[in-house]
């Protein structure tokens, strides 16, 4: 297949987020990308069952609830991706024998669901005040039938694509922390997609910074 990669600037949909919106969890955040909406809640560091405790690190549990029905295999796969990313970013050795629970509720899925889950998770972990070594963000890319790489696709674009990739990018060196791919991609396409995702992640990290600044502006004035 002839590869045509458009060096267009990585255009993502509008995003929005809100932190500290739930009263019972220690940290909560809602992240919106276009029409995709995910709500995340974090509890921790809390008591852990002796069977699950790890002597030198915190035990992180991730639960993803779909909008309709019970969690199935697809949710378990996504939980695994989110958990690997969070464990790499959190300084879990500061809370040994404790448990951190992250619950993600899908409010609406219009494409890029795993990326939205990662972004909501990062904002909720920041809101809970858990110590992290870096921030992370999630970006989804698809390659459609023309060979074009589209960042942050909608559900329709995902269905019309021949490959779907989600990357978690860290904030310090913009390296890939986690990747989840579906479909057939050539090596060059993969590298192009990673480069585009790294550029798109700049915009998401700037958005994190501005929303946290807005949140602290009221107390900084006190």
């Amino acid at each position, binding site marked *: 297949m002839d590869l045509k990669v458009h060096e267009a600037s990585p255009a993502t949909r509008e995003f929005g987020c809100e932190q500290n919106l739930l009263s019972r969890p*220690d940290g909560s955040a809602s992240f919106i990308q276009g029409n995709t909406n995910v709500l995340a809640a974090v509890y921790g560091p809390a008591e852990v069952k002796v069977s699950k405790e790890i002597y030198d690190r915190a035990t992180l549990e991730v639960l993803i609830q779909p909008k309709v029905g019970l969690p199935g295999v697809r949710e378990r796969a996504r939980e695994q991706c989110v958990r690997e990313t969070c464990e790499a970013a959190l300084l879990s050795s500061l809370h040994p024998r404790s448990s951190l629970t992250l619950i993600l509720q899908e409010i609406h899925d219009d494409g890029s669901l795993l990326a939205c889950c990662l972004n909501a998770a990062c904002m909720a972990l920041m809101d809970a005040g858990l110590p992290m070594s870096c*921030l992370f963000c999630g970006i989804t890319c698809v390659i459609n039938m023309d060979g074009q790489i589209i960042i942050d696709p909608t559900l329709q674009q995902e269905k019309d694509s021949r490959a779907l990739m989600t990357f978690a990018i*860290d904030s310090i060196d913009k390296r890939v922390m986690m990747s989840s791919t579906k479909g057939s991609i050539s090596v060059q396409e993969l590298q192009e997609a990673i480069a585009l995702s790294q550029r798109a992640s700049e915009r998401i990290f700037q958005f994190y910074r501005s929303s946290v600044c807005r949140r602290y502006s009221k107390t900084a004035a006190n």
Partner: protein
Amino acid sequence: MINCFKEKIGEVLLPGDVFTFEPPAPETNLKPEKVVCGPGLRRDGDDVRVCKCGVLRHKTPNVFWIDSQQKRYVPVKGETVIGVVTAKSGDIFKVDVGGSELASLSYLAFEGATKRNRPNVQVGDLVFAQFIIANKDMEPELVCIDSCGRANGMGVFGEGGFLFRVSLGLVRRLLAPQSEIVADLSGLFPCELVVGMNGRVWVKAKSTQQTLILANLLESSENMTATQRQALFRRVADGAL
């Protein structure tokens, strides 16, 4: 070296932000400066990294820390907290302080307590105590006496008042030396107030209604600016009672 910290005082920093220090040029005979890094800042080799998001604060001469908003308490040695006694096992009480583990409080750690003269502590009582051991590897331990053996305000309390939870940021503001919130509150009506650094506050006023009003005022003053808070307190002082 302190200059790169001083530039960012009062700014909001995110986890992953790094302060790198260049070694001073060998010609200039600069004395090495000491910087004390408080909560939220961690040393990573030669750099200092931010690990929590919040505002960078400074206390002269060289103390820097990140002031972050959190709800969950992590035990720290020397802090005074309000705990709830959950179990009595042998010679120690198990106290819930809101952290990841139950803290232990020995029955001898009260003023005037001996093996024959045990303190009168029941399950469900509130205790005001301070941590003598609180690190990530060991079970936290509390005592109700200071280093001289005097109670100094600590011990069992709580007849007739109301205990509620607030965020840790509000608690720090209440415990600050010239706290405006406490000054405004004392102008309303006479009350007893116990503030624990684990986010728990206990109030008691003359009647139940006044107690509940005070609790609601404290919970809501978390998200208000100073002027909004004073306006609300004035409305309560004039209108409600």
